[in-house]
């Protein structure tokens, strides 16, 4: 399990427990965290769970797949630390991780 902090675009932050193996997209939806939609259900097929990963965590969340890269390419506000939350899976190694949401999902 990991405590994950989700920061909305307006600065509101919420920290929730996400069980091991559960994606950060599911962790948000399951806990009513706003700002993540997850329309495709977790297949890296829609880019509506776009988040920015805080410094220092990128090395712990696995590499970006070709499909995730293709979807992020078309997302608004793509940055170097952009990821799809459905492709990040919780584990104790991510305890304390912070992700920030873009202004809107598209």
């Amino acid at each position: 399990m990991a405590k994950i902090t989700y920061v909305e675009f307006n600065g509101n932050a919420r920290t929730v427990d996400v069980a091991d193996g559960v994606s950060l997209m599911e962790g948000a939806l399951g806990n009513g965290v706003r700002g993540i939609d997850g329309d495709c259900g977790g297949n890296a097929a829609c880019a509506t769970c776009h988040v920015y990963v805080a410094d220092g965590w990128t090395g712990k969340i696995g590499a970006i797949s070709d499909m995730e890269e293709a979807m992020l390419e078309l997302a608004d506000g793509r940055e170097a630390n952009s990821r799809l939350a459905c492709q990040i899976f919780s584990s104790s190694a991510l305890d304390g991780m912070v992700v920030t949401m873009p202004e809107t999902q598209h």
Partner: protein
Amino acid sequence: MASRHTLPRDESPVEWPLPPRIRPNLPDYTAATLGDWLKTAPLDEVDIADPIYWETDTNGIFFKRLRDEAPIHFTGINTARHRGYWSVSRWADIMAVDMNHAVFSSDAHLGGITLFDMDQDFIMPMFIAMDQPKHDVQRKAVNPIVSGSNLAAFESLIRERTQEVLDSLPRGEVFDWVDKVSIELTSRMLATLFDFPQEHRRKLTYWSDISTQDPELPGALTKEERQATLLGMLQEFMGLWNERVNDPEPKGDLVSMLAHNPATRDMPPMEFMGNLVLLIVGGNDTTRNSITGGLKFLTDNPAEFAKLRSNPALVESAVSEIIRYQTPLAHMRRTALEDTILAGHHIRKGDKVIMWYASGNRDERAIENPDAFIIDRDRPRQHMAFGFGIHRCVGNRLAELQLKILWEEILKRFDSIEVVAEPERVPSAFVRGYKSLMVRIPA
């Protein structure tokens, strides 16, 4: 047994006019008769591309059987009309095809994104019918105008236009909701997005209808007439382009954005036309039919309508449910670039593969109680009406915003809208929608 692969175009070209279609031998083609027949018909004898199944809204009976009995199914009748096609009907398989753009191509030159091949004598390249990398470059040029942050600027304008349309509706008399609300609102919105003269906005509707019209239907334009009409559209838009291309800065409209963006400013005329058609159709039929469908579904499900009236905060999730339930584009098509295996079936290079979103959105394996219209589902956004992967609808946020504002304004104004007759449906396996829906708002 006939080949279970799409006939190659060079060996079996589809000739115009199309040969007569093989239809089941039935006393009539009413919804009742077709519905009964579909319940037990041999699957191989059903060509679900036939408009009769869409005009009568009986296609769902067939898709339920496909999902259960033959989730990857080849249609090998009427091949002289469409060369044969695979139907993919389950959510998970549709997702797999939509995600695999390296194998399943959208390229216009292979036929494009609809069951019937794009007219190869009149190819209009558009990014929905392109593969990577060119697709990405052109899509990114259009993306910003329909991003959430840009749409915030449009919200008050959309609301104003919606209020005007609703306030002008007749009271105490029967009128066509499709014409007075659905078309009126979407054409105003398109004219706004293109900064096209509002007084000529119905031209946009007309061009959209011509673009997607099934050329074999009675009264349809001939190939030549259709081409001439679309060239006329191009000419009008070239006029707007020429007015705007020399502005020092692009304005906020789509024509300006295309004329100024390095990725699109040197587009050949046919490509400009293709992208215009894409944006006009994309913003027209889809939203129009979801506007009509929404009223129909809420009327058919009075308990849901009551739920919405007592809790208008449900508008957003109701809008997602309306879009799922309507699925205004019934399918998207791909062409296999290589031999591949899809859920145990050999798909050969060149085969047409149809992703039936209308079926995936009713797949019991993915959505609980999918045939029920429920405005407060747990995950209302998880539907496939916008498609998935790199070709996912670019205008989805705009569509949702338009529908959300519409229903907010309807709830504020009308205690009752009576639907007085069954709708007349569009006879098309692509655009799933309504020609008319007669209603009456009490005086």
